[in-house]
């Protein structure tokens, strides 16, 4: 797409890292400051009147050549500071793996292995024995419903926005937000993602610019993961926390997509980067662990494929809940990461975006080696101090942080981090029991630990006391797998 943003000094972005001297960093800071001023100035048009601002020449979002400027406001945690090349959805980890680009072992694990555990087979699409035993196969398929020819008039987009949010919550969402569409968080032209590969419509070949003009709004809704089972991160119990919420989330989004069509407007999926849309919609901030961190649920949310629509709406603003300041100090996710994939260092500029960049390859490549124990690691989500039950004390801590002026936040963060380490542990390993699964069993052991179970098992029954959970792999073993950068 057309270049509409100043390119940074090449030394600043070479190899995706800042240059060794201070010049590149200073350059980045200057551009960041300028972009922040621009975003603030563009606020009233870019965020609140997206339809007009994206078509009128002279608008802060429209370049002289008529293309959209890629300056979405995504809050303090992520800033666009250079050229953003729209990502092809087929360059993600799973598509690369399916094509065999990550090696034979990885490809075999992803495409050919069936989970040994029955519940995993019923909740994990890539390791099920029969795709029809996985609900999202149906709810995440390309929409077959038509747009209602009798369009509902929307005289006030604010009222419709309030209604759409109420609808999403009624359908089962935990959080919902609306962002002004921007080509910066669209996938590259012609690359749409739909699970069954049938996203063939008249919008398929549109460029990010064209899509953002045709569909000015993005709706992102998510369902929070269960907190208690998530404590068994790196265990099948934790997998369930993630998988069950994503199954419900897919259903909620599909239902919302259908409702927008019933209102007489178009809704398309698979075109928008979920995290970019979530940030712009004010659902949360991006943390050091590369995950969206929300005010109520911390990092225990998954940003699924959002809805791009022409329904007249009123966009939300990014929020500041203190994640940007907290992640500078905390680093708990980096300490706990079993593959050392999370940086202890500063943000870098990657693809024109200044953010914390995780090493997705090392995060991903451990999976075949631990498939008998878990499917998704989730350690960085579970240990994040923001990831707590949605209780009053959690909200008090959050308000204390987000309500404080930015310069006053570091001492508050240190106090909150100290409390978190004391009460939840620096390296949390709590024992969790669910449906006969027990993380109190040592790694590799299989036995029934249910008191009163009279069935005859192949392994002798074990009675376990204590509250310590065992999770594979042990951190010291993975130091050899991936060296800390």
């Amino acid at each position, binding site marked *: 797409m057309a270049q509409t943003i100043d390119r940074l000094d090449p030394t600043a972005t070479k190899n995706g890292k800042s240059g060794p001297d201070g010049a590149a960093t200073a350059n980045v800071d200057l551009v960041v400051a300028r972009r922040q001023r621009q975003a603030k100035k563009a606020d009233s048009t870019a965020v609140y009147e997206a339809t007009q601002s994206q078509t009128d020449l002279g608008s802060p979002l429209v370049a002289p050549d008529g293309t959209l400027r890629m300056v979405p406001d995504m809050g303090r945690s992520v800033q666009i500071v250079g050229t953003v090349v729209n990502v092809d959805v087929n360059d993600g980890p799973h598509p690369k793996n399916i094509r065999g680009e990550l090696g034979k072992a990885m490809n075999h694990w992803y495409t050919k292995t069936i989970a040994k555990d029955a519940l995993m087979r019923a909740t994990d699409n890539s390791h099920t*024995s*029969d795709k*029809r035993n996985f609900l999202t*196969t149906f709810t995440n398929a390309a929409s077959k419903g038509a747009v209602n020819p009798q369009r509902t008039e929307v005289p006030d987009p604010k*009222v419709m926005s309030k209604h759409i949010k109420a609808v999403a919550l009624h359908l089962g969402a935990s959080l919902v937000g609306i962002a002004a569409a921007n080509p910066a968080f669209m996938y590259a032209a012609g690359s749409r993602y739909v699970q069954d590969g049938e996203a063939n419509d008249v919008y398929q070949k549109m460029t990010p610019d064209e899509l953002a003009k045709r569909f000015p709004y993005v709706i992102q809704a998510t369902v929070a993961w269960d907190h208690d089972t998530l404590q068994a991160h790196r265990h099948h119990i934790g997998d369930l926390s993630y998988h069950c919420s994503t199954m419900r989330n897919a259903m909620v989004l*599909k239902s919302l997509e259908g409702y927008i069509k*019933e209102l007489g407007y178009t809704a398309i999926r698979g075109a928008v980067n979920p995290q970019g849309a979530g940030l712009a919609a004010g659902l949360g901030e991006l943390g050091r662990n590369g995950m969206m961190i929300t005010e109520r649920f911390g990092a225990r949310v998954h940003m699924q494929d959002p809805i791009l629509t022409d329904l007249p709406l009123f966009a939300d603003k990014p929020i500041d809940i203190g994640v940007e300041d907290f992640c500078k100090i905390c680093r708990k996710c980096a300490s706990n990461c079993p593959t050392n994939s999370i940086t202890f260092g500063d943000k870098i500029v990657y693809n024109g975006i200044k953010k914390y960049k995780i090493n997705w390859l090392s995060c991903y490549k451990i999976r075949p080696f631990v498939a008998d124990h878990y499917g998704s690691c989730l350690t960085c989500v579970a240990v994040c101090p923001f990831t707590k039950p949605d209780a009053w004390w959690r909200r008090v801590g959050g308000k204390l942080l987000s309500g404080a002026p930015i310069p006053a936040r570091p001492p508050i963060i240190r106090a909150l981090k100290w409390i978190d380490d004391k009460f939840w542990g620096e390296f949390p390993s709590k024992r969790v029991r669910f449906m006969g699964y027990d993380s109190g069993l040592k790694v590799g052991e299989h036995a029934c630990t249910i008191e009163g179970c009279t*069935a005859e098992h192949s392994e002798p029954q074990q009675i376990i006391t204590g509250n310590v959970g065992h999770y594979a792999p042990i951190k010291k073993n993975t130091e050899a797998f991936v060296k800390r950068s």
Partner: protein
Amino acid sequence: MPRRSGGLSQLRDDLSRVSGALRLPWKRSKHDDDPYWEAFINRPAADVRNLIPEIIGKAAEGNIFPTPSELHSPDVMASHLKELARYLDATSVTGIVDLSKQDPELAHGFPYAAVTAVHADNDPYVAPGVGGQTAKQDGQFVPFIVACWIRELGYRGSVKIEVSREQREHLAVAAGIATRDRDGRLTVPKLGTRVHIGEILFTDLPLQADG
């Protein structure tokens, strides 16, 4: 004949009815000022393929895993089934019926049925809109995934058998998760009278029945 309950159950039923009938004059519905809400709940869909109940209702059932898993005792398996259902929908209540004690036509050759009640703001039998069908959607979501789990355990589990509303409510009472109040309305202790009985899950997984 509607079943009459007594004692605490009677009090619970009465309170449930009173709380449903009474509304404080200053307390308004949270959707009273939403001009689109009525259509969301009650306007029939122009294309039913936009509705989740239609999508899930037409979803095919997968194969049964060829190697049956090692099971716990039937009482433990029953508690696991209920734990999973509650995990999938925190407001749901699930009970298990021994179908050998029911009409053979209702049993469809299965020994057990799992009955799930979900909270229903609107009765999906009378509210055809996308919002009105939410309870039906929730009542499909839980049994569908539990059935998938049972098939992956290596046992039969089906939610595709047509069961009428009367039969569902009869099974809910038989499973011990619901009672009939004096007016014959179905009441689930945890949910009150605003309930929907979801898809009935028929299975041969060895379970301990309730009721």
